[in-house]
């Protein structure tokens, strides 16, 4: 059964995945320097364990989890700690980071198994092992994976939804993972199902990746209830709530988590990562990153050590082409522009997209003409037109009444707005403003 | 009967009544000239305070109608102000609004019957709107806010000024609407026979649009004047300082 599954509304930005969709994943050589920010996940930053001058081996823990919603950080390369201090973070701020000079002559030998084999472990032990491996959601959300694996007692999870949608234009990270490591994905699903005590898994893949669907189908394990579902190609199909809606017809109420409707969502790359962690016994040290865009000479899919600087990666990909104007971490719809080429790739970096003037040229803003295109685009059925007017008037409280909280800043409204009103940016500001007001009131 | 709280409600809710009420708070003195001029222009009942809009829109389709309506209102206003300020100490506070209305209604009845006898055509054209002078907030507002608290002379001055201001507004509206809507003024053709009249001007929408446009033009004119000579007010001596206080 392969009905056309999707959600309502959404947009169809040009995909541009052809740049890297057929390019096999290569391994990038170790750069000269690795930058490891202590904040690479949602939750509390990790607590520093090393000091300047320390020698670290590949896989060494350099910072440990600080609390439950936190994960440790491991050295992705052998070398010595050169510096600890503020460094450009991909989110645009300066954040505390460990700067490691890579040992050019180290063989980067895998250390003895750090993470145990999963067979025979209890679910609790697996969860602990996942946390110890520093695994976070690799789809971009960077939420610590182990937290999702411990649903509270009052919710029953019946389905594992595997996110292979990859709806962001340009990105082919998950695509290549599915095509090249389908067994790992299935292995990861097996571990997850065992841990959660769930019997059913659905893999959702957008239909623009037939080879990925084919690969996953071919390697489908016979003993598990896993189905591969083709999904309509539409942004933001890969957003958790949209994916759940498309695959299970369930809707996550505002302020609730997917687990409250009986679903756990994992990204294919995260699952492959979990499988790899238990196979090799090494924590999360590297990840697949799509480096692409019209402003890049050699678009590629790379395995890069976490902490590699943009500069080094772009250099490996042939450098910037003429006319490159903007470097975006993540997909171009929700990603963040990078002001500094020294910012490192972190665990949640799905891709680096180099845009040119054609995409990034400034556009004149016109008054809202109430065309309603944003309402037709909004995947969570808000009225961005009204919210935008309220935002302009600074009426944040009224925006809250108009369900601003449901907005996930997917950017669909900004994308379609013919008047170039920066709607999602205004909503982000309004959300921040509301939070500030609430804090001040409290 | 309508109690005192109704009166305050009424005055508070009448648009523009806010400033009008503030201007005559007890303890503040105004010059006789100011009492007169305030109503004529500065606090023109129609153009500034937006009172008495119903007649200003309904019967201003010709200058003659506007003038008749203006004069009738003027008569009722001065008559009531005279009576109210004369008998202000005899009118019990609790029933003062009702008494005002009774006094006004009496004068309106007189005006109604007089117009019917003297100019039956115009009386017919004005129709029910003569009777509706009773509920013209402007008149009741002046009684409550001014005539019932001031000596007879001042009350008359104020009524003259306000009534005159009302006539000015009425005639202004009437002239614009008759000129465009009929090509004439007071019935005399201005533009000649070949003029294509703008019928809309003598229809209800024309009333709204004309007043709206007048307000916008006045706003623009005031804004320009304020920009030219900031903070200088050309009003009788003492007024500017009082306003500033």
């Amino acid at each position: 059964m392969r009905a056309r599954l999707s959600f309502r509304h959404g947009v169809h930005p040009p995909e541009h995945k052809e740049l890297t969709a057929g390019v096999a994943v290569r391994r990038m050589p170790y750069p000269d320097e690795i930058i490891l920010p202590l904040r690479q996940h949602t939750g509390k930053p990790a607590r520093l364990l090393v000091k300047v001058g320390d020698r670290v081996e590949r896989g060494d823990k350099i910072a440990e989890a600080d609390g439950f919603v936190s994960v440790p950080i491991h050295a992705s390369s052998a070398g010595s700690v050169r510096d600890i201090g503020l460094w450009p973070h991909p989110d645009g701020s300066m954040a505390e980071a460990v700067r490691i000079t890579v040992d050019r002559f180290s063989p980067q030998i895998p250390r003895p198994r750090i993470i145990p084999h999963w067979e025979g472990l209890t679910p609790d032990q697996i969860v602990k092992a996942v946390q110890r491996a520093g695994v976070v959601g690799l789809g971009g959300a960077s939420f610590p994976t182990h937290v999702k694996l411990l649903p509270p007692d009052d919710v029953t999870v019946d389905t594992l939804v595997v996110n292979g949608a990859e709806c962001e234009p340009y990105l082919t990270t998950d695509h290549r993972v599915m095509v090249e490591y389908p067994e790992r994905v299935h292995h990861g699903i097996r571990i997850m199902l065992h841990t959660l005590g769930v019997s059913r898994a659905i893999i959702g893949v957008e239909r623009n990746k037939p080879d990925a669907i084919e690969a996953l189908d071919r390697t489908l394990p016979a003993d598990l209830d896993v189905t591969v579902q083709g999904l309509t190609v539409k942004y933001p199909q890969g957003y958790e709530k949209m994916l759940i809606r498309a695959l299970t017809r369930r809707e996550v109420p505002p302020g609730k988590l997917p687990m409250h409707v009986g679903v756990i969502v994992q990204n294919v790359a995260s699952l492959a990562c979990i499988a790899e962690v238990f196979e090799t016994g090494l924590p999360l040290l590297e990840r697949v990153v799509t480096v692409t865009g019209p402003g890049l000479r050699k678009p590629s899919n790379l395995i890069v050590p976490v902490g590699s600087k943009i500069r080094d990666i772009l250099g490996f990909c042939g450098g910037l082409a003429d006319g490159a104007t903007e470097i975006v971490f993540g997909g171009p719809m929700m990603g963040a522009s990078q002001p500094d080429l020294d910012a490192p790739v972190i665990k949640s970096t799905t891709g680096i997209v180099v845009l040119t003037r054609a995409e990034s040229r400034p556009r004149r803003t016109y008054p809202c003409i109430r065309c309603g295109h944003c309402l037709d685009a909004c995947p969570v059925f808000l009225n961005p037109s009204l919210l935008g007017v309220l935002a302009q008037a600074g009426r944040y409280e009224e925006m809250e009444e108009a369900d601003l909280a449901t907005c996930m800043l997917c950017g669909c409204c900004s994308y379609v707005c013919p008047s170039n009103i920066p709607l999602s940016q205004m909503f982000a500001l309004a959300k921040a403003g509301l939070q500030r007001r609430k804090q001040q009131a409290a | 009967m309508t109690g005192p709280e109704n009166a305050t409600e009424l005055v508070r809710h009448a648009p523009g009544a806010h400033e009008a009420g503030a201007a005559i708070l007890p303890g503040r003195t105004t010059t006789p000239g100011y009492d007169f001029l305030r109503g004529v222009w500065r606090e023109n009942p129609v153009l500034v305070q937006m009172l008495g809009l119903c007649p200003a829109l309904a019967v201003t389709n010709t200058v003659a109608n506007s003038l008749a309506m203006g004069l009738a209102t003027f008569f009722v206003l001065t008559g009531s102000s005279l009576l109210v300020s004369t008998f202000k100490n005899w009118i019990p506070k609790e029933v003062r609004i009702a008494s005002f209305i009774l006094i006004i209604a009496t004068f309106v009845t007189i005006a109604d019957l007089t117009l019917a006898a003297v100019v039956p055509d115009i009386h017919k054209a004005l129709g029910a709107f003569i009777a509706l002078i009773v509920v013209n907030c402007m008149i009741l507002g002046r009684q409550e806010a001014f005539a019932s608290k001031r000596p007879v002379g001042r009350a008359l001055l104020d009524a003259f000024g306000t009534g005159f201001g009302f006539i000015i507004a009425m005639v202004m509206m009437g002239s614009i609407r008759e000129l465009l809507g009929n090509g004439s003024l007071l019935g005399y053709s201005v533009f000649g026979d070949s003029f294509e009249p703008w019928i809309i001007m003598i229809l209800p929408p024309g009333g709204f649009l004309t007043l709206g446009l007048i307000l916008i033009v006045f706003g623009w004119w005031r804004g320009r004047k304020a920009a030219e000579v900031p903070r200088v007010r050309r009003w009788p001596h003492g007024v500017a300082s009082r306003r500033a206080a």
Partner: protein
Amino acid sequence: MSEATRDPISAGDPLLQLRASPHLKAPDSTPKIMWNVVGSLIPVIAAATWYFGPSALLVIGAATLGAVLTERAFGTPGSLADGSAAITGILLGLCLPAGVPLWIAFIGGAFGIGFGKLVFGGLGQNVFNPALLGRAFLQAAFPAVMTTWPGSPGEIPSWSQLRGDNLAIPFASPSTDAVTGATPLGLMKFESTPTDVTRLMIGDISGSVGETAGVVILLCGIYLAARNYLNWRIPVSIFAAVALFSGILHLLDPARFASPLFALFSGGLMLGALYMATDMVTSPVTNAGAWIFGIGIGILVVVIRTWGGLPEGVMYAILLMNALVPFINRATQPRPYGSRGRRAGREAPA
């Protein structure tokens, strides 16, 4: 740049831009939509010229000039470029009789933009369709001129002849020596004479400059709908409501009430439904609202045509529903994702 350069910085000298997401943008823009609407009107204007000769171009030109000059004089600087004033002018010109004096067309355009749009704050803020407001103003101001229809194209001796006193001196009444006719709706209402539907469709009838060629307007509207420059729900619901309502009446008394096809292709319904009612600014933003809006217009059109004093009611129907749009928008707010149970029918699970 040579292949040797490995350092990305030196490769393209990027002045790195920082922008908020999304970093991609759909190709549509407000001026593009507006000028596309203008472009889609060219066949309609051509048809108008074919039927009403140079008068059509003169009237459309005068109305557009009135609209554009007013926008230029009082609007925000540069707002002419977005094309919305031009649309207002052209649409107004298209719904005037071909014989109106040019000064009247000019005043209509100026009034529409001035009182219908600029007073509210310009593009996007107006409540009433400016073209229709201008038309309604002219209808109320100069009722005689606005109901003097030129004879149908077949009755005019030569194509190049003016269809009325277009060139009357400003503020003067037009002379009345042109060939005049009656619109199909007028004939139907006052003389109970229906007009052949094929003639209605091709436009060989008397009426406003641009509203007679029903099929041409329909095709242009379909083009706009296909490009998502108009909300197809509005015209579809108008047509459905008019066809249904007038169909019922027609069944009750075929002699008095015209057939649904006649109702659809007569008067300004095609132009109104496809170009005026779908004006984005003055129609509801929600799709549920668009249905309500369209059905309301359809019903009002039939009510006014059937029981009102005027033979045609499309303009008033749209203006009245324009006034209701803020209310409709409030009443049809979409139900956000996850708030199941209180969701409107529109968002019901597929």
